[in-house]
């Protein structure tokens, strides 16, 4: 009987080995381990056995059963895994195909520059203010220390809409307008971005419309060294911590002293290259201490308050930052141009 059991075990294992599907295995299980299977059949004949032989045969039968079970499980697992592998293989895709594009428009580079500069100054305690684009002569010129016959008016030929109203030639009138709302009480810390207009023919470096950002800081005891400090902080944040600034004397009717602010060239590190016209410096800002006349006309007592103002061209900042060579690109809106600023 033991031999018979052994024989059955061998047969079963062989069939398990041959089985190529979960289904085939199931029939092997039913065949050998089922109630009508040969092992049960053998065990039924146990009655005829001696007391001594009975436990041995019983033990053997159990061993054979266990072995079959074990092998069945092993094989099932094997087959299932193979089936899954097969399925996954069939599901395989070309992962080099492009992904579904997520639609994303681009920020206009001038907006990107304006927002970045606003954020830097907001971080320095400034607020953002705006003013009208059609200005009165009074705010655009007179309150900025440019009386009617001032020779500096020559510098900026303008678009008039009436005899005393024009498209503002600078964002500086916002200075005067904002200061007035403070009614002579400082501190005033503002930046004013906006569009300005001058009678220029449009070419690679001129535009009849462009953008400026004006800044203003009025308080007691403001010194020229503070102007230098604030602008250095700004320039290093915008252009990089390794940059330095240089002040050069200049002239604006609404500031005195007036300076041009240069930043060290980022391309050559100050050694001189084509971008900085071999000077090592790039002019980026106009600035100065607010002229006492301007403070006075806007309701601040120049004996008590001093302040500084600065102005910059947004297009120039954008051109330097992104290496753009023609100012007209900003207003042509070629989609191939705009698309380049999605990360801006």
């Amino acid at each position, binding site marked *: 009987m033991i031999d018979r059991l052994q024989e059955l075990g061998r047969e079963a294992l062989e069939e398990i080995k041959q089985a190529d599907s979960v289904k085939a295995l199931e029939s092997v299980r039913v065949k050998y381990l089922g109630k009508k299977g040969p092992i049960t059949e053998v065990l039924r004949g146990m009655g005829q056995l001696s007391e001594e032989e009975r436990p041995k045969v019983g033990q053997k039968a159990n061993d054979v059963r266990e072995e079959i079970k074990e092998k069945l499980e092993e094989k099932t697992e094997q087959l299932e895994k193979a089936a899954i592998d097969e399925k996954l293989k069939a599901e395989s895709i070309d992962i080099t195909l492009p992904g579904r594009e997520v639609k994303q428009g681009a920020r206009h580079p001038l907006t990107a520059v304006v927002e970045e500069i*606003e954020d830097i100054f907001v971080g320095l*305690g400034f607020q953002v203010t705006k003013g009208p*684009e059609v200005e009165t002569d009074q705010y655009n010129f007179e309150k900025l220390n440019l009386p009617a016959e001032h020779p*500096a008016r020559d510098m900026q030929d303008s*678009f008039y*809409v009436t005899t005393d109203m024009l498209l503002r030639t600078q964002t500086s009138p916002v200075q005067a307008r904002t200061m007035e709302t403070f009614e002579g009480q400082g501190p005033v810390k503002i930046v004013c971005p906006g569009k300005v207009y001058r009678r220029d023919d449009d070419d690679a470096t001129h535009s009849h419309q462009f953008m400026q950002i004006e800044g203003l800081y009025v308080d007691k005891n*403001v010194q020229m*060294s503070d102007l230098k400090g604030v602008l250095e902080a700004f320039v290093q944040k915008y252009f990089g911590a390794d940059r330095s600034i240089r002040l050069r*004397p200049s002239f604006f009717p609404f500031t005195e002293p007036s300076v041009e602010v240069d930043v060290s060239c980022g391309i050559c590190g100050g050694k001189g290259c084509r971008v900085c016209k071999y000077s090592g410096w790039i002019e980026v800002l106009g600035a100065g201490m607010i002229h006492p006349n301007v403070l006075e006309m806007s309701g601040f007592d120049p004996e008590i308050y001093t302040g500084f103002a600065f102005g910059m061209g947004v297009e120039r900042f954008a051109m330097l930052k992104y290496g753009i060579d023609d100012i007209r690109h900003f207003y042509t*809106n070629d989609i191939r141009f705009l698309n380049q600023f999605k990360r801006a």
Partner: protein
Amino acid sequence: MLVSYQWLKNYVDIEDLSAEDAAERLTRGGVEVDMLHNRTEGVEHVVVGYVEECSPHPEADKLSVCVVDTKSAKRTIVCGASNIRAGQKVVTAEPGAVLPGGIEITTTTLRGQESQGMICSLQELGVEQKLVAKEYQDGIYVLPDDAEVGADAVAEIGLRDTVLELDLTPNRPDCLSMLGVAYEMAALLDRDVIHPDTAHKESAEHASDHVSVQVDVPKDNPFYGVKVVKNIVVGPSPQWMQNRLTAAGIRPISNVVDITNYVLLEYGQPLHAFDLDRLGSSEILVRRAGEGEEMTTLDGETRTLSSEHMVITNGKEPVALAGVMGGASSEVQDDTTAVLLEAAYFQPARVRKASRQTGIRSESSIRFEKGIDSGRVEEAAERAASLLETYAGGEVLQGSVEVDHRPAENKKIETSAGQLNGLLGMNLSEDDMLSIFRRLRLPASAEKGGIKVEVPTRRPDLEREVDLAEEAARLYGYEYIPTTLPSGVTTPGFLTDRQRRERHMRRFLESAGLNEALTYTLTSREHSSRLQLHTLPGKVDVSLPMSEERSTMRTSLLPQLLDTVQYNRNRQINDAALFELGSIFIGEPGGTLTKQPQEKTVLAAAVTGWWDTHLWQGEKKKADFFVIKGILEGLFNELGVASEVAFVRSSQAELHPGRSADIYLNGTYAGFTGQLHPSVEKEWDLKEAYVFQLDMDLILSYDAVSVFYETVPRYPAVTRDIALVVDNDVPAGKVERVIREAGGSLLHDISLFDVYQGENLSAGKKSLAFSLVYLDPDRTLTDEEVSRAHDNVLKRLEEEVSAELRK
């Protein structure tokens, strides 16, 4: 202002500085040198030659064959100029010479005649045609007889020089003169200024014997002076003077005219020489012109004047437009023998008006307009007299005839080292300050703990303390100003709510796939009547537009946005999705502005072409009404006003009547959206373009629905889907509204998931399928409760829109 570096050396010792160094010092000091012009870099082997013989070329009518002595050789040179003569000293390029533009001179053969070099014109040496004296404009240049044969001819004609082109700011008219630049240079380097020689003899005769002066307008003309110079011989001015004028961009004419121009450049003082015999009287009267009074200026033009103009008259007629240009009738000519030399100070504003109105910008008017040194007028006149004596054989009559209304005293500014340091954030001593003022030649003294500075007439830009602070800082060096941060009150910096919402709006539109565009504000009259948000009362026109295209302020952002779409289409970029945020400008009825126009912030967008393309996955979707409406709905949601917005069929004539909507915010018109009318599309050469334009002032001023947390549902929701058959003309929005109202508080959400027309439906009918979600946040709904609510919905649908359930 063009400054010859060689000439500048006459007034300040800068031998140790190169032209480049000098330019750098000036620029760093605040007088910007825009450009350096090296007048003849690399030109060599061009020498003074003496034409010993000159005979016609045997083979060519227009050529001459010359024998030219250049000291090193006697050369045979073929010359084509008609003014070549034996006995002339000429500019000779020897073989091996290189002329400007890289032209190499070699020995060549011209019509069978060997030519060993070239006799040059000034133009061939790089002098601009307009700066060449008239008699040499069409031929070779003839040097003065005393030129040394064999010497460097380039130096002889003053071209071994570098010209500094100054870009002067309006506050520094003093640098419109060689002496002014010398003062600046001297201050920067702490050196002396060397003044020109003004000495001359005076004859026994008095100027006042020949002329009287009367000034009727002392405010316009605070000083008027004349000198008289007789026995003049008009001829060419000396070569060195011509060279300097040429360097400064002025063409040499004759000794008398050149001398007045020379002194103008030297002192910044415009002078005018009248021909005494042609003046027509012996008196000078300065007055305003009469309305419509006429005069002929030196350029031959007849000018009609007004009472805004100031004229110099001979007592009867104008002989000069004061400060701008002399008159033709009294012009110095070849036969002139006596001149009346005018040296005056005219008010800037008066000259500026005349210059603007007549369109004449002369070297003289430029200087008067910006302000000359009122204290240097007489010295300049003496200098001119001295030069006329030396170079025109003139006899200077004794004295001058002058009318003087200038202020007697110079302006004084009181300050202190403490105050100046306070402004600058520096720490200079009083001695440092005084030393700076001494270098600037501003008389200054320490007094009672302060500093008193006298401002010479040379520097009219110095008016108050801050001006001195600037002088101190720029001479001491801005690099020595420390870097500090303001010590005052700290204030919070922030963006206003509106500014933040504008940014959110931009971010939303970018994320939706729209590119931001920026177009010009000035537009054409044609554009300004198109696609407007409202019917506007008026436009804002520019008084003197540069072109019709930029003649008025925009009243809508769309025309230029459509131009942009068209621009891109013309470059094969057919898919466009653009937005712009900007102002439109609203004028007044009748077109005349009485106050600043209203500026309204408007948001516009244009979308056309393929919207979504996932090509290899076989998906492609064109922009349509629902694309643009979806963007708007998302935007309104972002701005917190979605629940207050209604889309109502629009009657905008420029939009597709069936595919457009007006947008209302809580009942107020806020903009429009839709497909452009085909006729409008055709104008811009577009195919199916969708647009919107919104009044952002209105929308952004509307209180946004604030974000407030609502409990996340803990109980299950019940979803019921229904397909309704309604008449075609029943809007889905209406059906949805009925469902929403009928569903009551249990109806949590509705979504439309199918719209169908066609087979299995009767004509004129459509099917709308909605998914209704019922939910009670506080408990699990029973089937019965849901059915009750749902049945009510169905009943109301039947009653209000005759909807039937689709079977």
